[in-house]
């Protein structure tokens, strides 16, 4: 699958490992957008953690106030079509978004990185197969495949994650493969081979660390894409199922009642947008920080 948002300018990393990371960290800290984004994301994680044990009201409690009620002191974000407290649901929704966003990327890394490394380093038949698969599926719109997968497997959080991972691992594999392919020609790799280092150690001890930069960026930028995906799936009715709130399904419910109760769509839309923005700024910041060609 190809996604425009994850186009990353890939360049082999200079082998000055130690100073690269501290260099990158210094640059990242100076990027105001990335900094603010990180603070926001930490707050978000905190809210999600808190919501596992406490929310102002029970998030599935029906009819505790008037339905479609606008924000009041008792219900800061108002109530939805069943008279449930939107703020509580928003907090729990953060859990879902983070799980989907981060969870899918972790799995994408777990699947895509090893495959990409093996294909790019060893070439040969494995590489042929991997490249072939990637080329065949390059042009297929990922949302459609994800919808079909969710359709076959049945809508649930687990299946959504599976569907997203199944459509996204190829981008990661392609990136890692490219990195592995160029890195394997480097002198330090040849030196390692000459010194008799075992292949696994080569791959994970030498090549992978040098390829980490673009991988991290790709993974970070993949998180908002996954969250957006879930929002789309929820909007089309095959997302996370009630009563579990997800920002996407809350936005969908809000859109349906937008003329009568506009407050319903505003809260989850802003939450979604801010979170996606934060991950995007962070990913951009990481990319700039890790790119040796940008100015110091």
């Amino acid at each position: 699958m190809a996604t425009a948002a994850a186009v990353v300018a890939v360049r082999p990393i200079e082998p000055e490992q130690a100073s690269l990371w501290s260099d990158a960290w210094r640059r990242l800290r100076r990027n105001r957008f990335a900094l603010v984004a990180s603070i926001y994301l930490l707050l978000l994680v905190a809210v999600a953690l808190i919501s596992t044990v406490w929310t102002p009201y029970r998030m599935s409690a029906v009819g505790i106030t008037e339905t479609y009620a606008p924000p009041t002191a008792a219900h800061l974000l108002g109530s939805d079509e069943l008279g449930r407290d939107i703020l509580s649901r928003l907090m729990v929704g953060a859990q879902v978004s983070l799980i989907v966003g981060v969870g899918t990327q972790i799995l994408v890394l777990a699947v895509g990185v090893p495959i990409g490394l093996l294909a790019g380093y060893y070439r040969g038949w494995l590489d042929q197969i991997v490249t072939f698969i990637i080329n065949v599926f390059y042009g297929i719109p990922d949302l459609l495949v994800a919808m079909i997968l969710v359709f076959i497997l049945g809508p649930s959080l687990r299946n959504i994650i599976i569907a997203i991972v199944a459509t996204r691992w190829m981008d990661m594999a392609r990136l890692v493969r490219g990195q592995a392919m160029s890195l394997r020609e480097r002198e330090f790799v040849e030196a390692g081979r000459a010194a008799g280092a075992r292949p696994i150690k080569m791959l994970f001890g030498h090549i992978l660390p040098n390829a980490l930069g673009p991988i991290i960026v790709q993974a970070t930028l993949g998180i908002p894409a996954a969250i957006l995906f879930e929002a789309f799936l929820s909007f089309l009715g095959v997302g996370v199922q009630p009563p579990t709130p997800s920002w996407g399904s809350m936005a969908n419910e809000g859109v349906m009642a937008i003329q009568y109760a506009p407050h319903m769509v505003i809260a989850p839309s802003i939450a979604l947008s801010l979170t996606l923005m934060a991950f995007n700024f962070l990913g951009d910041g990481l990319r700039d920080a890790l790119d040796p060609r940008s100015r110091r």
Partner: protein
Amino acid sequence: MFTRGTLIYIAQRIVLIAFTVVAVSSIVFLGIHRLPGDALLSERLRGSAYQILLHHYGLDQPLYTQYWNFVVGVVTRGDLGESLVNRGLQITPLVLRELGVSAEVGGLALLFTIGLGMVLGVFAAMRQNTWLDYLLTTTSVVGYSMPNFVIAAFLILVFGIWLDNLTGGTFYYQLGGWRGDIGQLWLPAFALGFPYASIVARLTRASMLEVIRQDYIRTARAKGLRESTIIIRHALRNALIPVITILGPLVIGIITGSVVIENFFGIPGLGKEFAQSILNRDYAIVIGVFTMYAAMVGLANLLVDLAYVVIDPRIRY
């Protein structure tokens, strides 16, 4: 420009596209057929009547027979079968008709994406590090961070309802036969294209910045050419290349977004058909639409690659 080598390349690509289409639709076909006959059920349809319907659609035959019939039908007659929910509805003409509608909205969105995106990107590059640059950059990040249906909902709220006395009409898609007109399409096209315009803007800005630093630009300036001539005639052409690079993913992104936007606006295109058919479990149509998409995207990618040949004379196949 189109040498023998290029023509061979085109032929190879078309074969690959055909293969991809068959492979992809096969996977979808086999995957979906795990659930036979579900679309045929209703609250009242029972027992023997259900079996009869299964037989009519050939769904009581073994899977490989169904699959073979399907492939033969597609390849020889271009026949994608019959809808399971709407009896008697032939899928191929339906899909072709809806393709036209989607292409119209999608094409407009694409134009908008590239046009607005490049304009914003150029301006941001020209005024680098000024407030304008930051504003445009931030706007573009916001742009692709909001789900397109949220953008659409707010636009409808603003233009369709709050400003209703000004505009005096509804923004829901009106069919003017095969072609709607710009006045009706701009809202869905905008919602569809805006997230990607942001991406194009960023890319254009980055590549413009690189290009501007090049020697030949400095030479042109030294020669005394006007800034606008330099930008348009020299810098832009080279800055266009990265945009062409992501044209493939851009088209895919617009197709993806159209599933949501068409549903939202009620536009009778492929995206709406796809989503509705999945929800109706009319998997005959799902397979048909998907096959059409696979073919479209393959062709779009091929066109993009050919566009490279036109833009960059160094590239040969």
